[in-house]
């Protein structure tokens, strides 16, 4: 495995709701290696985006506890000046909604140039423009000279996403965080964008943190996968192990709930209940216990830890050892059919 790029230790990111702080990311310990694609999977409210924002220092009013080491430097509570040096140069971010992620009143060229300008104030305007055109070409935009002068709303969703990627990679960052980069796109465009990301990763030898809810994309892109539930990582493993031999109940159920395009028309598995809201999370015990009520309470740990099952494969809580799907889940999931 390549060298460590980011090492996160017991990270806790809390937001203020009324007068209390609630942790959206709770006790996350994670290492990101160079030249790997680490997928973070979870449903909305799992804390996956909050984790990504914490790594980029993009939370404005959050309380960050724990440590985030970037190449050995603890940046968890770095100064704004330090963050401005890191962001855009060492780490870039790719967003989900390309239309709202670009300034509607600025031409594409200026928006990409801004990243270059911020980290290399010395290069001339002409040089900057040449580099922007190069970047646009690199991300596969067919007429870069024209696109340079266009506004975001004049481009298609796929083209805009390429512009977002151009902004993120402008300064050859070591870490790329892609937050649901293809959710808003059509499948064929999605395939192209994922292809581009793969190509760029191999070229730049950067690490990509891919946040997604789509397990198909995980299977195609990831080297390692971290599954998040209610602010915590419940399972980490390499992609083969995670998909072929998942251990945590949540991972198992998630994999069963995806309609497969390969045909089998079996009933989809339904995970009962919903991800609890931030302020209603159980703070003690296994956070997933409410979603598997048929399991005996004694199978859970009182203070669930990440257990290293095999080298590199971690699972939270002991409940995985006893987990079985409910026998009566057929009736459960078809509730309402009389």
């Amino acid at each position, binding site marked *: 495995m390549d060298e460590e790029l980011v090492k996160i230790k017991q990270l806790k990111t809390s937001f203020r709701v009324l007068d209390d702080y609630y942790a959206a990311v709770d006790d996350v310990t994670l290492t990101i290696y160079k030249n790997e694609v680490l997928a973070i999977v979870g449903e909305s409210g799992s804390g996956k985006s909050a984790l990504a924002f914490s790594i980029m220092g993009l939370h404005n009013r959050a309380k960050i506890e724990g440590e985030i080491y970037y190449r050995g430097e603890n940046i968890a509570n770095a100064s704004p000046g330090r963050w401005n040096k890191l962001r855009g140069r060492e780490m870039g971010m790719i967003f989900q909604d390309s239309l709202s992620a670009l300034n509607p009143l600025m031409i594409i060229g200026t928006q990409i140039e801004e990243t270059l300008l911020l980290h290399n104030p010395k290069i001339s305007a002409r040089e900057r423009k040449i580099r922007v055109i190069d970047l646009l070409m690199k991300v596969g935009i067919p007429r870069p000279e024209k696109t340079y002068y266009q506004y975001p709303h004049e481009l298609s969703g796929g083209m805009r996403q390429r512009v977002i990627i151009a902004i993120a990679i402008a300064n050859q960052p070591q870490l790329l965080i892609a937050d649901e980069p293809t959710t808003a796109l059509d*499948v064929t465009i*999605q*395939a192209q964008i994922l292809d581009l990301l793969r190509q760029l990763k191999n070229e730049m030898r950067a690490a990509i943190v891919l946040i997604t809810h789509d397990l198909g994309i995980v299977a195609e892109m990831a080297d390692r996968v971290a599954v998040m539930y209610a602010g915590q990582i419940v399972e980490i493993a390499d992609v083969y192990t995670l998909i072929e031999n998942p251990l945590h109940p949540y991972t198992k159920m998630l994999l069963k709930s995806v309609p*497969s*395009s390969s045909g089998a028309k079996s009933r*989809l598995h*339904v995970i009962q209940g919903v991800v609890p809201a931030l302020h209603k999370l159980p703070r003690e015990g296994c956070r997933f216990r409410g979603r598997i009520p048929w399991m005996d309470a004694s199978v859970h740990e009182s203070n669930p830890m990440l257990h290293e099952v095999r080298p590199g494969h971690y699972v939270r809580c002991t409940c995985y050892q006893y987990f079985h799907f409910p026998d009566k889940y057929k009736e459960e999931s078809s509730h309402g059919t009389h």
Partner: protein
Amino acid sequence: MALIEVEDLKVYFPIRGGIFRTIQEYVRAVDGVSFSIEKGQTYGLVGESGSGKTTIGRTIIGLNKMTSGKITFDSISLGEDRRRSRLNIQKDIQMIFQDPYSSLNPKKRVIDIIAEPLRNFEKLSTQEEKSRVQNLLDIVGLSPEAMYKYPHEFSGGQRQRIGIARAIALNPKLIIADEPVSALDVSVQAQVLNFMQDIQKELNLTYLLISHDLGIIRHMSDYIGIMYKGRYVEQGTADEIFTNPQHIYTKRLLSAIPDIDPRQREVIFEKRLKVRDEFVKLSKNYFDENGLAFPLKPISKTHFAALPERG
């Protein structure tokens, strides 16, 4: 006898321009589409954004005007004089919307949301109405207390169930589901899809399922139509489309679906690249000079593809 038959449907939208906002040209959102759905079946309509799939759904339910063509529902033509036939048909065709957050009026209670179609079409006493709503909530698996709550008190999946309860309130025959789960998380998505299958069996519903997600389409549909720029490129049973695609566009669409097996990824990448190259090389054979699909030609009894004249 098909429940709904769409024949050579065309829906054009005018583009206005110039100083006096005169009609300059038309966007051919739907450009000559025909299909029919048998009672109790699910028809999947697939295509990328801008392919016209949503316009078809909106035209059937009357939200868009058709430019030409014929829609026959339950032996009644939804033709030009839609107003007269409309009222009865409106009861029989209902819609489930994509976004459960914006399709429910946030200022109305659940009972008012679900009872709205009932109030429009049936004169019920308050007590009758209440028991009907209660019954509907029971069918979609929500507790009766939900009646007096507001949409924001529910999760996305629950809201989509409220939307479904509203859609089935009048015992419709056809439900048009436009991307019913694309705003939902995977686990919730499974919940809603299972549930749609359950009530289909129970109430003998017919679905027109519009989606860009081929996994969902395959999982749910009996027949599938694939659209590209307002026209059909291929139509057939789910198996025919997925195992024996004929049109280059269908092949490309299918090859773009991510596969859940990580060990296949290199194979898939290669195949995808091959299909993409083929698409670029051969697309002029598969599309006419305007880049549009040819008329459909039969491959088998149920399978049609828009292949060029020479076959």
